[in-house]
Structures are given as structure tokens and as C-alpha cells.
């Protein structure tokens, strides 16, 4: 049986997802308004700016930074044969255009994919519209970027 279908692997995925969702609720990054109040830097002079998002992402990065360093000294992860480190290296056009389009969507809504999915727990009005659009957009994107690992690597390695 593939390692990706064994119980420890699936339980790890469940634990990670659960903690991630808990973190999004505790930090209130599930609240689109709170994210938008971070992005609204025009409120800095009036004292209305909410810097909370920076206080979420920085400790998350620090913990993950340590985990990456620990991982580099291990031959393999605990429950699989390889670390799936992204192989793309070059800053190519799809990366830049994708980040611009995502930035517009994020600025319009205050929700990125993690909070969008966790919000299923609290079911705000119009959430299904966002989730369906997210899926359709993602599916459409797969037709635009070079399909297949080799072709994609040729562009972005």
C-alpha cells in the first residue's frame, strides 16, 4: 500500500489541518474584516491600523523555519520517503502574474484560501459563491500554466 494511504500519514494530515484551522480561529484570521484592517495602511496615520496579521505570520514562519532546518538533517520525513520540496527556482511570468491577480482578489475580499475553507465552520452569507469561484479559478489556472511536471520545470527551474 502506498505510504500516503497508511494511517500515520493520514492522522498527521488530520492533526496538521486541525491545528491550522484552530490557529486561524484563535488569531481571528478567519475574519475578513480583520485581514482588511491590516491591509488598510491608510489607517496608520489615524491610529486605526490593525497590525495583528504580522503578529500571526511571523511566529508561524519562525516555527516553520526551525522545522525546515530540522528536516534538512533527516534523510526522510517520518511517514513518507521524500520531502516534497518545490523544485521551481526561477521567478517566472506565471509566478508574478499569479501573485498580482491573487493580490487583487485578496484585497477585494480579505480572504485567502485557508480562511476561505475554514469559514465553512461559521458559514457567512455568500461563502459558497466564493468557494465555487475559487475552485473554478484554480481549475482554469491549470489550463494556463504548462501542464506536466517536465514542462513546468522547463519554465521555472
Amino acid at each position: 500500500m502506498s505510504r500516503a494511504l497508511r494511517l500515520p500519514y493520514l492522522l498527521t494530515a488530520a492533526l496538521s489541518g486541525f491545528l491550522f484551522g484552530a490557529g486561524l480561529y484563535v488569531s481571528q484570521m478567519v475574519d475578513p474584516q480583520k485581514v482588511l484592517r491590516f491591509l488598510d495602511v491608510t489607517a496608520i496615520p489615524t491610529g486605526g491600523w490593525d497590525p495583528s496579521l504580522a503578529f500571526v505570520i511571523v511566529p508561524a514562519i519562525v516555527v516553520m523555519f526551525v522545522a525546515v532546518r530540522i528536516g534538512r538533517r533527516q534523510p526522510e520525513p517520518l511517514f513518507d520517503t521524500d520531502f516534497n520540496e518545490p523544485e521551481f527556482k526561477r521567478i517566472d511570468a506565471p509566478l508574478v502574474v499569479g501573485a498580482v491577480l491573487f493580490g487583487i482578489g485578496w484585497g477585494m475580499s480579505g480572504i485567502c484560501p485557508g480562511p476561505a475553507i475554514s469559514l465553512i465552520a461559521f458559514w457567512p452569507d455568500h461563502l459558497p459563491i466564493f468557494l465555487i469561484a475559487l475552485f473554478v479559478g484554480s481549475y482554469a489556472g491549470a489550463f494556463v500554466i504548462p501542464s506536466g511536471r517536465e514542462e513546468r520545470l522547463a519554465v521555472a527551474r
Partner: protein
Amino acid sequence: MDAFSPIPALAGGLLIGLASAILWLGNGRIVGISGIFGQLLPPARTIVWRVIFLVALVLGALVTAYIIPGLGVGGPGGEPAQLALPPPSLGIGAPVWIAIAGLLTGFGTKIGNGCTSGHGVCGIARLSKRSFAAVGIFFSVAIITVTITGIV
């Protein structure tokens, strides 16, 4: 809760970092929500763990809202969650605005290979040049978008 909330932010950030560390050291996978979500369709052989992760993501938010109620939006004692509505001056209906935002987010994260979690947390932690570029771009563009639309 309108104001700056550093303690819940730090606690939530540590949980998110821990979640990322566990998936990386346990399964050798990056916690990138757009990637986990965007590769749900067959023939992905990895569909089982992706579905489990996403269901657990929802349950994590829901259960924690019952354990620690009233932090802000969500759960018992919390305010109802609300999506951002378009600025009234634009004359665009909320469903259209939300659909456009969702399409741009789905399409952009797909061709850009990541979002706030995959590039923002994991990519920066891996010191990936691509992730530094992506994060700089999408934060800047989001700030500009909020400024221009005046949505807040």
C-alpha cells in the same frame, strides 16, 4: 473585536507554524492551502490526505470556537462571520464582487503556485527566492487594492 490583538495573534501564529512543521516533518508536505485545495481533482493520487486535511481544517476552527468562545467572529458567543461587501459607490452587487474575488484568488494562486500559507509561511521559512517575490507582490497589490477601492 476591532482592535489590535497581539496575544491571540501570536498564539494562532504558533499553532499555524506547528501545523506546518508537523506536515513537513511527518509527511514531507508543504502546508499550502491553495495547492492542497487546487489538486483535489483526479488523477491526483494524493486526494485522500488532501480531503482529510481540509475537513480537519474546518473542524479545527469549529471545535476551537467552542473551546475558546468569543474571541471575535465565529462560534457561540462570537459575532457572525461576514464576507467583505463591495464599496457602495461602485454599484456592484455583493455576489458578483465575491465571485470575481474568488476567481482571481483561485486562478492567481494556481498559476503562481501558492498563497499566504505555501509562499507566505512555508516558502519564506525555506528561504525560497520565488516565495519572497510572490509574498512581496501579493501583499503590495492587496494593500493597493484596499487603498483604491476604499473597502475598509
